[in-house]
């Protein structure tokens, strides 16, 4: 006999249907706002009291007002790795546990970061456009590029994603160094205590750290100057880690060699000056999005929910919230 949905723990899903629509488990009742015609605020008001858990994406701010509107809320699962959209202080105050996507995306993000770097240095997208425009038979060979092997790669943030990036680029003959909040003695790479120092000794900077108050615009004008006019910046972290206006200016003025950007300060808006540049490769915040990881993510969300509701440790807790 099927359980009355009203007697199951109520889990509110916030965010676009894409990806989350498949959330399913017989043990919970999923409240999906997109299945209702009510405006979101009225819909939430109608269901608020019963909601014990929320699944959200990085696009939805789980802020203090939302948290206060959900008096029974005990657990938040975000489908992202980043938690800058969640008011962790308010969660801590209310005793709300938070879990994120953990290392599920790390390899996919690392793959994409390497793909972007290879594309920028080897001119893959730029020479592809050259072929599509019919220029190869007419204008001859594409101009030569620089070698990837031997490049000094500086990784900003040697967490789960940064370390996967490092491992991959080592096999290409790149030398790896890093900046991180804390030195990581288990890794054989050279540590630099500031991003500026790292930039001065790097040909490429790969940004893979979390966005916090301290790391906002951590890649600023001074760092770009230290990196130099042949330097490349790859950003697979968060847009606001980089001072985007400064980066665009540096690219226009030839003070930076190129960039591979998956994230931007005001997504989905992308500075249009970048559209005309061949030394830049752009993507729409999709380093995490593979078919395989999305399936893994749904499983992880369900597993975390089950753990929470049976008082077991969460699989991917965000530190400081449980």
């Amino acid at each position, binding site marked *: 006999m099927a359980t009355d949905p009203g007697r199951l723990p109520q889990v509110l899903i916030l965010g*676009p249907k*894409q990806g989350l629509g498949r959330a399913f488990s017989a043990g919970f009742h999923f409240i999906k706002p997109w299945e209702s015609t009510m405006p979101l605020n009225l819909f939430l008001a109608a269901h608020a009291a019963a909601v014990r858990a929320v699944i959200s994406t990085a696009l939805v701010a789980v802020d203090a007002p939302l948290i206060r509107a959900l008096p029974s809320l005990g657990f938040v699962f975000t489908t992202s790795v980043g938690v800058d959209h969640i008011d962790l202080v308010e969660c801590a105050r209310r005793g709300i546990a938070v879990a994120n996507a953990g290392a599920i995306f790390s*390899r*996919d993000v*690392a*793959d*994409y970061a*390497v*793909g*972007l770097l*290879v*594309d920028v240095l*080897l*001119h*893959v*997208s730029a*020479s*592809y456009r*050259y*072929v*599509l425009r019919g220029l*190869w*038979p007419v204008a*001859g*060979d*594409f*101009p*030569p*590029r*620089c*070698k*990837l*092997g031997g490049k000094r790669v500086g990784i900003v943030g040697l967490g789960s994603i940064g370390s996967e990036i490092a*491992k*991959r*680029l*080592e*096999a*290409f*003959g790149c030398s790896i160094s890093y900046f991180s909040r804390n030195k990581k003695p288990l890794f054989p790479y050279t540590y630099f205590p500031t991003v500026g120092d790292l930039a001065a000794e790097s040909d490429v900077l790969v940004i893979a750290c979390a966005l916090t108050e301290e790391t906002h615009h951590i890649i600023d004008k001074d760092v770009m100057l230290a990196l130099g006019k042949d330097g490349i910046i790859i950003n697979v972290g968060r847009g606001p880690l980089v001072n985007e206006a400064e980066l665009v200016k540096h690219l226009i003025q030839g003070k930076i060699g190129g960039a591979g950007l998956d994230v931007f300060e005001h*997504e*989905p*808006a*992308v500075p249009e000056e*970048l*559209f005309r540049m061949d030394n830049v*490769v*752009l*993507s*729409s*915040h*999709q380093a995490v*999005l*593979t*078919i*395989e*990881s*999305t399936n893994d993510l749904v499983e992880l969300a369900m597993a975390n929910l089950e753990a929470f509701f049976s008082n077991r440790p969460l699989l991917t807790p965000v530190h400081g919230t449980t």
Partner: protein
Amino acid sequence: MASLGVLLVVSVDSYLEAELDRRFNLFRLWESPPSRRREFLQANAPWIRAVVGSPNGCADAELIDQLPNLEIVANCGVGIDKVDLPLCRERGIRVVYTPDVVTDDTADLGIGLTIAALRRICDADRYTRDGSWKDKGNYKLTSKFSGKAVGILGLGRIGLAVAKRAQGFGCPICYCSRSEKPNTNYKYYPSVLDLAYNCHVLVAACPLTDETHHIINREVIEALGPKGVLVNIGRGSLVDEKELVSALLDGRLGAAGLDVFEHEPHVPEQLFGLENVVLVPHIGTDTVETTKAMSDLILDNLAAYMLNKPLLTPDIDKEYRRARLLAGWLSC
């Protein structure tokens, strides 16, 4: 001693050309219109003892026949399908090329094309540039690379370098080659068809010979399948291009990353705009550093030859003959 007479068959990197001109007695074949080439060669043949060429043109039978004093051929590149090796062997003409210096760049591109094809990097770049992100929302889900089985056709220097990089992504490696390689743990398949059935990404990195012409045919492409990826960093004619185009249009092959084509610089236009296909104009070795390294190797080899000193690169014909003797190229 008179300077070595060198025939430069095609236009090459400007540094190489300038140095050849400075250090040797240089004859530029392409400066003659095609109809006057026979005359040009006849007039200058007595002095021409060396030919320098590239994958765009080197020493075929017709040219060799017109150069009775030819002693050495230097190919700027590692693919030597434009050199008539048997004829050179018959005439005692030495053949040198540029191994090792091109290995890393070509392997880098092999992996770059693989990721670009699976993760749709070039199409995503287009999607972002043309404003689709704002209008249509997120780009679609793409296919993971890490951990997928990579099959390498040809485990020479370049194939090994591709394997090393793919292992950094946790990819299990298998290969098909003229002979099984004793010093690797990779799984060997004696036929390219078996290889295609057992991998997700097939990277073609072997030389083009009579035996390997169209070695990647319809059957192999279908064995790779609707989720499979073909990456070609070898030579265009390793692949039956017509079958490849048809399979990509029908969805019988999942994706492709191609640096080489059967009739360069012409690329099949039916492939233009397919989101699962990445097409680049034979850029595998086009780095500033490698181009200079290849040029220096050619120059140093010619200088050594002129002074009767040992050549810097192995005699390519000996390499090929030894490999063939060991295993033959039967079902591969």
